């Protein structure tokens, strides 16, 4: 490193890699249901694509994590979005395309994609 | 040199600002006891005998190492200081053989002197004591670690002044003692037998191997110049009953209190039975003792005969780089003024 600018750049890059270790109360959490039925329904690829998006878009305040069965096996793949100050939103019957859409509209722009929510699908 | 004003025992004194408290006290004629101090060495501050009370300091301070500062107030003999010195002597005694009666150092032992001065009449501690084998491998001195008080002067003289580094501290804590590396013994070490360690030992740990039995108070000291090489070391001959029984270095300008093995230990030739004590005249190939008058008579007769026969130029004399200036002067004068030749030379070239 030859300058402070370079150091700053390295810091930004590095932080992305390990930011999830920070104890944060703020920011968005996307929790993917990853029980056996979820995995069978393709939850893993959803999880990976969400992670991909977060990385690509450099979303610092977004963490993607997984959880066990949330009890809606027939709606799998399922993930939940927790945004500070908002009610939890549960998206069901997810596909890669839908997940991408949720990412763009809800996570980034803050507009819930009502049509995929659990409320619209029960 | 800038000076500072300090107070020692309530008396004001002005001293150079690079003085230690010890130097300042000495200047005022106040005697502060020391065991590990030697003005030629870096201050070691280990014996803690020289501690004094310095106003404002939490602990007692070692006067050998602490430099004076303007306005400093010092007590050299307060109750607290004296108690500390007593305790230190008490502790040293607890780990020292109680054999002053027969110890050769008796009379010049600093531990003995201070125990006397500070009324430490016995040790109040019992427990472990040193038990080392005496290293008597050197032909010149003993190393009896049972008497050592770990002042470190020997080690420091060997490393800081002599730069031989033959001895050092071995082990740690209570087991600290002075030895050669790997306890191989002085004689097998790199020691050059200069005896400068022996000369600075304040107790009887490093003592010359003496042929004579003598008490130091029975001897008189005669300051003289070493008769070996051309360095001109100053030293004191210890004399008892018309015998040189020991040598101690003096602080001369060229030797700064150091000596070498020859100066320190090479004096026994003086009392050697081989010494010539009567003039000898060779008669029929054999030496026969004679009186001075006979010897002088013979020499004068020969000089006169040869001179009248062959003149002055057949005479020659070798004066000596071993004799005094006065003797060399007389020798050349004898030849030049008494005999009439300039053939006087000496072994300057050898």
């Amino acid at each position, binding site marked *: *490193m*030859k*300058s*402070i600018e370079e*150091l700053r750049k*390295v*810091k930004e*890059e*590095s*932080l*992305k*890699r*390990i930011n*999830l*270790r920070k*104890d944060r109360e703020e920011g968005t*959490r996307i*929790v993917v249901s*990853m*029980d*056996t039925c979820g995995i069978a329904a393709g939850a893993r690829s959803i*999880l*990976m694509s969400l*992670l991909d998006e977060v*990385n690509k878009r450099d979303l610092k305040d977004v963490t*993607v*994590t997984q*959880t*066990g069965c949330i009890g809606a096996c027939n709606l799998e793949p399922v993930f939940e979005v927790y945004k500070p100050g908002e009610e939890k939103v549960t998206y069901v019957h997810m596909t890669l395309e839908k997940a991408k859409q949720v990412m763009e509209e809800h996570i980034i722009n803050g507009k819930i994609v009502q049509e995929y929510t659990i409320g619209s699908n029960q | 040199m800038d000076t500072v004003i300090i107070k020692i025992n309530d008396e004001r004194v002005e001293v150079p600002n690079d003085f230690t408290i010890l130097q300042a006290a000495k200047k005022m004629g106040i005697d502060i006891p020391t065991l590990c101090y030697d003005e030629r060495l870096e*201050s*070691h*501050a*280990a*014996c*803690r005998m020289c*501690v004094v009370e310095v106003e404002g300091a939490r*602990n*007692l301070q*070692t006067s050998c*190492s602490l*430099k004076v500062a303007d306005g400093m107030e010092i007590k050299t003999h307060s109750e*607290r200081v004296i108690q*500390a010195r007593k*305790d*230190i002597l008490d*502790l*040293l005694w*607890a*780990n020292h053989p109680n054999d002053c009666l027969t110890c050769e150092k008796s009379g010049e032992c600093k531990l003995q002197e201070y125990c006397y001065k500070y009324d430490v009449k016995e040790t*109040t501690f*019992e*427990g472990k004591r040193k038990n080392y084998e005496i290293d008597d491998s050197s032909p010149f001195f003993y190393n009896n670690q049972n008497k050592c008080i*770990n002042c*470190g002067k020997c080690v420091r003289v060997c490393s800081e002044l002599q730069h031989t580094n033959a001895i*050092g*501290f071995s082990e*740690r*804590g*209570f087991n*600290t003692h002075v030895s050669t590396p790997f306890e191989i013994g002085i004689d097998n070490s790199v020691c050059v037998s200069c005896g400068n360690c022996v000369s600075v030992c304040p107790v009887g740990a490093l003592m010359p191997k003496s042929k004579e039995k003598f008490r130091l108070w029975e001897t008189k000291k005669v300051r003289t110049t070493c008769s070996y090489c051309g360095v001109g070391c100053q030293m004191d001959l210890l004399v008892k009953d018309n015998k040189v029984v020991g040598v101690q270095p003096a602080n001369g300008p060229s030797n700064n209190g150091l000596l070498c093995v020859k100066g320190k230990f090479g004096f026994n030739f003086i009392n050697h039975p081989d010494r010539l004590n009567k003039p000898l005249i060779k008669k029929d190939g054999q030496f026969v003792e004679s009186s001075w008058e006979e010897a002088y008579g013979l020499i004068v007769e020969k000089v006169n005969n040869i001179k009248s026969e062959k003149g002055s130029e057949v005479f020659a004399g070798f004066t000596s780089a071993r004799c005094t200036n006065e003797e060399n002067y007389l020798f050349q004068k004898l030849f030049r003024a008494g005999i009439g030749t300039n053939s006087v030379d000496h072994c300057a070239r050898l």
Partner: protein
Amino acid sequence: MNIYRSHVLICGGTGCTSSKSDKLQKEFQNLIQKKDLDKEVKVVRTGCFGLCEAGPIVIVYPEGSFYSQIKLEDVEEIVEEHLLKGVVVKRLLYKGAISEEAIKSIYEVDFYKKQERIALKNCGVISPEDIYEYIAFDGYMGLAKALTEMSPEEVIKVVTESGLRGRGGAGFPTGLKWNFAAKATGNEKYVLCNADEGDPGAFMDRSILEGDPHSVIEAMSLAGYAIGSNQGYVYVRAEYPIAVQRLQIAINQAREKGLLGKNILGTGFDFDMEIRLGAGAFVCGEETALIASIEGERGMPRNKPPFPANKGLWQKPSLINNVETYANIPQIMLKGVDWFKSIGTEKSSGTKVFALGGKIENTGLVEIPMGTPLRKVIYDIGGGIPNGKEFKAVQTGGPSGGCITADHLDTPIDFDSLVALGSMMGSGGMIVMDEDNCMVDIARFFLDFTVEESCGKCNPCREGTQRMLEILERITEGKGEVEDIDKLERLAKTIKDTSLCGLGQTAPNPVLSTLKYFRHEYEAHVIDKTCPAGQCKALLDYFITDKCKGCTKCARVCPSSCITGKVKEIHSINNKLCIKCGACMEACPFDAIILK
């Protein structure tokens, strides 16, 4: 760059490493690969998490799940359930991480929640062997800021105004030290780091070097800039192999990245550093002895003054601070004086790391703001005394410190309050004692340590501590006399008053403070010949209780034939003849023999 969705952090501190955390790491990596998770889950070996009681520790992020005492066979379950399926394995969680309502993340566990981590900020959070992880959390930003925006004087001003005091023991104001070293004249100066942590039970410096070595490197570079030095040395004991290894890796990485060496960050400032290994002598933690040791001399202290700031390493001006002190510096530089001063007390700002040990539930490392009451540390963070025993005293400051009794549990801890109580902060050892600890024996234990560690240079310490130990041994063996207590006290005061270095000056503290608060225990030993805590074997008697079945085994093994009794009847011991060898107690199959 691959971004992982989950990180598994495995404690690589010395404690957890000795419980085979290195094997856990391999197992995790192995199984993660098997499950094809290696692109999603990263395994990181960190420094110490502090709660060593719970080791080996594994933390899984982003949840912050706190797994404790993990065995090799537990790994598969964590991988399968947690990493793959996202189900936290409750049975393996640290017990303090589960409450009725929910699972707590590591940050919410009492042990951590009540701490304030500055020096230990990155310990257990980053990989010490990856400079990028350090940089990610603002690493080297403090240095960058100083080099580009501040003059050396300004750096010293910040350190001074922060009120940071030396964490190695005496609490000397760090800024003042820096100032002395900066003002000292000389073309060569050195920055030294004292990592010769010697207090028994204290391991915060080791943990910092193992967990966050770059913080020390950054701080030393900062110090170099501030005082005008281009060379640093870290003196660390050879028995800290992990710390040494990680520090060396960190130095190498910093050099590689241009954060050590010539022209750091293009500012024209040069600084480099090397490690010097010590052989583990306690006294080498004393700064002048440490310097002597680096020079290749025998590790013996030198009298001060001159202080190292004027005549230190190779007689050149040298700045010497301890590891924990340095670990605070980068953040002070970055977050500023006000932030730092907002933590702690007025005269002791910031935090202090303590090593909790002895009779306490949560043994380990804790970092708390100065001014935290002892009670909070011992009960809230430390979890109190195990087995329902009564708290008796806490020993702080290691062999140089003293004991603090229950009366003073509400004292806010800082440098001055501990000294006022006759103890000291020291490097932060905190040993809790309960009713079963004999205070005379505790004093004897610490004296034994100092006698062992005395360098032997000055008379009071070399000869005096040995005599103190002998007196204490006599007392604990029941051979003490009343006068011994006074003699002990007198000797302790002289040693304190006259010793050359801090080791000797503080060596009598355990004796003086136990004499102050527990003189009655000493008196019980010498007058009544009893040990109230029941620790000193020689003062106890063997008794046979009614559990005895009269099997005669004890009587048969007794070498002094002092046990009598008929077969199938309760035996008895003649205590006048008993030599207290304990053979009977060992032989008794019914636990019928007790010491009282």
